[in-house]
């Protein structure tokens, strides 16, 4: 068992870190303040190859492993939670399902542009009435000749309106399961600009304020028959498998947020003086930092283990759920303590830690709430 990262991983991390420090950090406050989607950063990331890290080279990606991708999200999130989630939603929630379930034609058609960052990806599962209970879908897709006709709406969709390619989950019928009628759910690829596909509300959020979170609206939206992703009726499995992977991305985002807050705090307590000495000399500060660092280290090991599992195992839902649950809750706790250790200054928007605390909260909610993660974990334990 070797915990040391390979040289390749260390080099990649250095690249991500430099990019985050030079390109992302300077914009982080404004992006948050103005609730602005950082288009210029996305263009730079596309050039640097960040939008296609785990996509095989044959489809125009970098051909790296999931751990490298997780480290990218981690390093970006250390300075800006918004930028981290843009990469995560694009890679895990749009590229990955096409790579896993797409036909050769679909992969050839969509992946190169996505991997090159010429196009951005998004994923539409959640609806007003279907959050944790994803079976509660209302959006319908009906086959009419050579086209699927979509009707319904999705809400809280990350990268909404900026993304060009959307994985959309919809009900395609009813099937009998164990004597009960259940919804049959399928997955589709829908492109921006398709008639009948529009964007509704842009949500005003507590954190990750630069991330575009939109409502998707489908009104008699017609897409080609061949845009069905995977088998008809297997959409729920597509969604769940996709979310398993997405949880690694969000766990990495939470990890980055917590680590970023910890680093910022360590620097601050060494400078800040009260009672004639730096506050780092108080034992309370030291113990708090010890706890924070230990938590983040544990979270990192869980996240990296989950990333490995996705590369090497068929099923990695268990590892991904544990990583996301722990990293998200650790991030919330660590960012909250980071604000406390900054004292009154931590509550001021000029300092980064309050933004990190606001950003951290969502990691306990999206791509499956902490409660859902506990459901997944316990279901695995009690099999």
């Amino acid at each position: 068992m070797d915990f040391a990262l390979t040289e390749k991983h260390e080099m990649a991390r250095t690249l991500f870190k430099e990019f985050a420090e030079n390109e992302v950090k300077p914009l982080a406050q404004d992006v948050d303040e103005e609730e602005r989607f950082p288009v210029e950063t996305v263009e730079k990331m596309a050039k640097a190859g960040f939008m296609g890290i785990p996509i095989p080279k044959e489809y125009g990606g970098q051909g790296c492993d999931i751990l490298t991708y997780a480290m990218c999200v981690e390093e970006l999130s250390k300075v800006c939670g918004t930028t981290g989630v843009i990469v995560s939603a694009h890679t895990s929630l749009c590229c990955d399902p096409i790579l896993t379930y797409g036909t050769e034609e679909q992969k050839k058609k969509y992946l190169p542009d996505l991997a090159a960052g010429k196009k951005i990806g998004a994923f539409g599962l959640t609806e007003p009435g279907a959050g944790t209970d994803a079976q509660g879908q209302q959006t319908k897709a009906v086959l009419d000749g050579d086209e699927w006709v979509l009707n319904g709406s999705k809400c809280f969709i990350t990268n909404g309106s900026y993304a060009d390619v959307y994985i959309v989950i919809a009900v395609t019928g009813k099937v009998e399961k164990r004597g009960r009628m259940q919804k049959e759910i399928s997955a589709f690829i829908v492109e921006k600009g398709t008639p009948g596909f529009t964007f509704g509300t842009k949500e005003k959020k507590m954190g990750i304020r630069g991330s575009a979170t939109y409502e998707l609206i489908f009104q008699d939206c017609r897409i080609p028959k061949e845009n069905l992703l995977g088998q008809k009726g297997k959409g729920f499995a597509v969604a769940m498998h996709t979310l398993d992977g997405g949880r690694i991305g969000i766990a990495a985002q939470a990890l980055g947020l917590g680590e970023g807050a910890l680093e910022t705090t360590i620097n601050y307590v060494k400078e800040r003086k009260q009672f004639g000495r730096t506050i780092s000399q108080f034992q309370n500060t030291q113990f708090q930092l010890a706890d924070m660092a230990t938590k983040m280290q544990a979270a990192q090991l869980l996240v990296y283990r989950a990333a490995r599992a996705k590369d090497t195992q068929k099923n990695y839902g268990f590892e991904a759920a544990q990583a996301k649950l722990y990293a998200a809750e650790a991030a919330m706790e660590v960012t909250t303590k980071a604000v406390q250790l900054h004292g009154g200054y931590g509550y001021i928007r000029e300092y980064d830690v309050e933004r990190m605390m606001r950003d951290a909260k969502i990691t306990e909610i999206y791509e499956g709430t902490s409660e859902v993660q506990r459901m997944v974990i316990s279901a695995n334990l009690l099999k």
Partner: protein
Amino acid sequence: MGAMTKEQIAQYKDVYVFAQQVDNELSGIALELTSEATRLAAELDDAKVVAVLLGSDLGSDLTDQLAEYGADRVIVVDDPMLKDYMTEPYTHALASVINEFKPEIMLVGATAIGRDLGPCVSARVATGLTADCTLLEIGDFPLKAIPGKEAEQKHKQLLMTRPAFGGNTIATIACPDNRPQMATVRPGVMQKIEPKKGAQADIIKFNPGFEKNAKYVEIQEIVKNVSDVVDIMDAKILVSGGRGVGEDFTLLEELAEAIGGTVSCSRAVVDSGWKPKDLQVGQTGKTVRPNVYFAIGISGAIQHVAGMEESDIIIAINKDEDAPIFDVADYGIVGDLNKIVPQLTEQIKAAVANK
């Protein structure tokens, strides 16, 4: 207020209604009440329907109309004091009519006027009043005879039913020991009968004499309300549209106008910039409790339903039969709102015209 003797009670006969008029035009409730009175009178022993018309310079067209809707007799008090509604002269006039003519039942419409007049009159003639009734029947009191006291059960009493505690309970009330049995009746609840063209009623002119006293108020100004901007939280009928309606709310506005309702909407409509935020119903909008809520082209996400599920009646129109709005709707139509709403508007217009 003591109980009357059997002999005293026996002197009271017939079903009387207060025929409310404003600007010498009968209010709809007046005709609803005479219609209801004919139904009640049919169940009593040779009881007549008597309308009491109070006002100034009243034309014969009003009495003719009351006769067509079932009044056998109209007692007219015509005096300049009664030109506009004022509590004291009207109370004096109606209480005097009751004392003079002794009605068994006295019905008043639960309008703004009637709700003011009814209690004042009932106090003056020392009898019971049930407010805001939605159902009137002739029956026994108590409803079931008490064993061993069968002889004490009174028959052919007016049983007055009204919602109480904000509509959460229904109370049936009787007034067995005093006369008249008085009720104010909610407008729009009682069905009008088919008018009998050319029917005539006995006209009795009666003047109790008016003397100004300290209870007379002076009317400074009467303001006719023509405001059509209603706070959706106060509206009794809401015609609410969602994204399915689209930008053009004309169909809904026409329906609202026909039924006397107000237009409201879902968040999607506000976000699209089609309607202002103060018309939004839902968790982040307003919480409404109208008598009737039309949910048109609204899917019925909980975020919306939370703001309107307390409505008395919910009517949903949506093309998707699986839309969650149908889970909370009392009545639902699956279909194209662009076809359904205009038809509904026409039907309502026709029904209103025939009322």
